[in-house]
């Protein structure tokens, strides 16, 4: 009975996996991986002293404990309800697209009917940026306002890219149902990553733009505007802000995995809780962690763009590429590659 309640799909997917708990665990791992990777490339060690034998893996837990005990300072002239509420709302709403993602073919384990899941997932993912802009406005600090404005500009760059390239996956399979998209990529060579690499690359770049990944780390450019919209936050609010950006990246990379990397393939889910729900879920989580790890590696190689160069690149280079990817998907649909 208890197991039935816990594995009720809406509750399970939103709170446990891949919802809040799994997202936090994976984000902690990815943050550790990012710091270690950057350190390996940069002639240093990275997190070490907290737990030397496992390579400093508990450093992030130590950081979280430290943030929990730090005093949260709220500026007197800040707009209190929005100042406190905006990051929390951003954190929660960044996770919403998870509710529209299937992780199995068994209909018993869908949170919502999956007929238009692609559209719902993409639509839900566009809700969160407004809260960052609100947090920047509520801080009453010039650097925060500049950061919030930069976030507003960057939205115009990446949103269209995500919509077009996500739809390219749907068009190739001629269905809005994410389960159909995953099941259609059955042999290994039919992954949409290989048949339509342009769309995959464009969506990868768009995810970097959306979540402040290098080389597009513009809304929180440390050397120009201190910390952008997050300048005035301290203590646990600072930890929540940093986590929200990575949780958004996690939600996007789940979408990327389902569309382009074949979701839970090559495993075939059968009935039952473990074989039908948990194992495909773990496979999808591993694949999306690999995608996030590649994004973290780029931190060590790239600098950051200017805001007008990012917008310029998005509209002059990436949108034509996305349209070409969409065209390739149309050709694939016409030729019946995924029939």
């Amino acid at each position, binding site marked *: 009975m208890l197991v039935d309640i816990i594995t009720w799909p809406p509750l399970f997917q939103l709170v446990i996996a891949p919802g809040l708990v799994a997202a936090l665990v994976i984000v902690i791992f990815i943050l550790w991986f990012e710091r270690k990777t950057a350190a390996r490339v940069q*002639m240093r060690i990275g997190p070490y002293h907290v737990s030397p034998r496992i390579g400093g893996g508990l450093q992030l837990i130590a950081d979280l404990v430290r943030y929990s005990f730090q005093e949260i300072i709220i500026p007197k002239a800040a707009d209190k309800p929005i100042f406190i509420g905006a990051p929390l709302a951003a954190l929660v709403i960044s996770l919403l697209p998870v509710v529209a993602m299937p992780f199995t073919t068994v209909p018993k384990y869908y949170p919502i009917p999956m007929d238009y899941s692609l559209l719902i997932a993409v639509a839900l993912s566009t809700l969160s940026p407004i809260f960052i802009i609100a947090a920047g406005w509520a801080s009453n600090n010039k650097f925060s306002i500049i950061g919030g404005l930069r976030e507003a500009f960057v939205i115009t760059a990446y949103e269209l890219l995500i919509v077009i390239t996500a739809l390219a996956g749907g068009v190739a399979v001629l269905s809005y149902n994410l389960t159909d998209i995953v099941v259609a990529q059955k042999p290994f060579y039919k992954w949409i990553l290989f048949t339509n690499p342009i769309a995959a690359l464009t969506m990868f770049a768009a995810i970097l733009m959306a979540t402040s990944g290098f080389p597009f780390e513009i809304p929180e450019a440390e050397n120009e505007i201190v910390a952008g919209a997050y300048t005035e936050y301290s203590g646990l609010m600072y930890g929540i802000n940093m986590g929200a950006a990575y949780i958004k990246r996690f939600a996007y990379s789940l979408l990327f995995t389902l569309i382009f990397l074949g979701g839970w393939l090559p495993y075939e889910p059968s009935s039952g809780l473990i074989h039908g729900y948990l194992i495909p879920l773990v496979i999808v989580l591993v694949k999306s962690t690999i995608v996030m790890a590649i994004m973290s590696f780029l931190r060590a*190689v790239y600098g950051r763009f200017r805001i007008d160069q990012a917008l310029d690149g998005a509209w002059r280079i990436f949108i034509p590429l996305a349209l070409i990817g969409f065209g390739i998907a149309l050709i694939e649909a016409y030729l019946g590659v995924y029939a």
Partner: protein
Amino acid sequence: MPGKVVYKKTPKPRFLDAITGNLGAILIGLKYFANPNRLTMKYPYEYPQLRSNYRGFIVLDMKKCIGCMSCARICPAAAMKMVKVEVEKAGKKKQMPFPVINYNRCIFCGFCVDVCPTEALYHIPVHDVVYTNMEDMVLDLEKFQEKVESPSVKEGVPVRYLFDPDKGLVKVPIKEGGGEE
């Protein structure tokens, strides 16, 4: 044959440079990710074994000092002061000035060691000493003659950095009785 001027131009990016530039940067990153070259010294579990000509803390050898006061005169930071102490030299008691040092001010320039005509002051290769309050850093004549100890010597492993044409500096732990330069 003095230096000559050479006119150069910066290379302008060409069409395909976007792809090759990105690939080159990522490949260099991957090369160092697979084979990192780390310089880090895990202080205080490892501490550097300094060379013998390092300008570290200064120690006085009272028997050689002749009281000429050159060290106090040349100190740029006014860290050396002379105190008069009664000593016995050649059977006669007399008052002689001896230097004492204030490590709050010392900048370890080494002028006092270089100017002493009898080599009564010398450097020891120690650079990390811990004092718990500022009064302790003003040494009197007794403490000035002792060789200060670095706290990392008790627990750490001494390491040395050797030059290497591939990796720049290579960290080498020193075994017991190993070479000191």
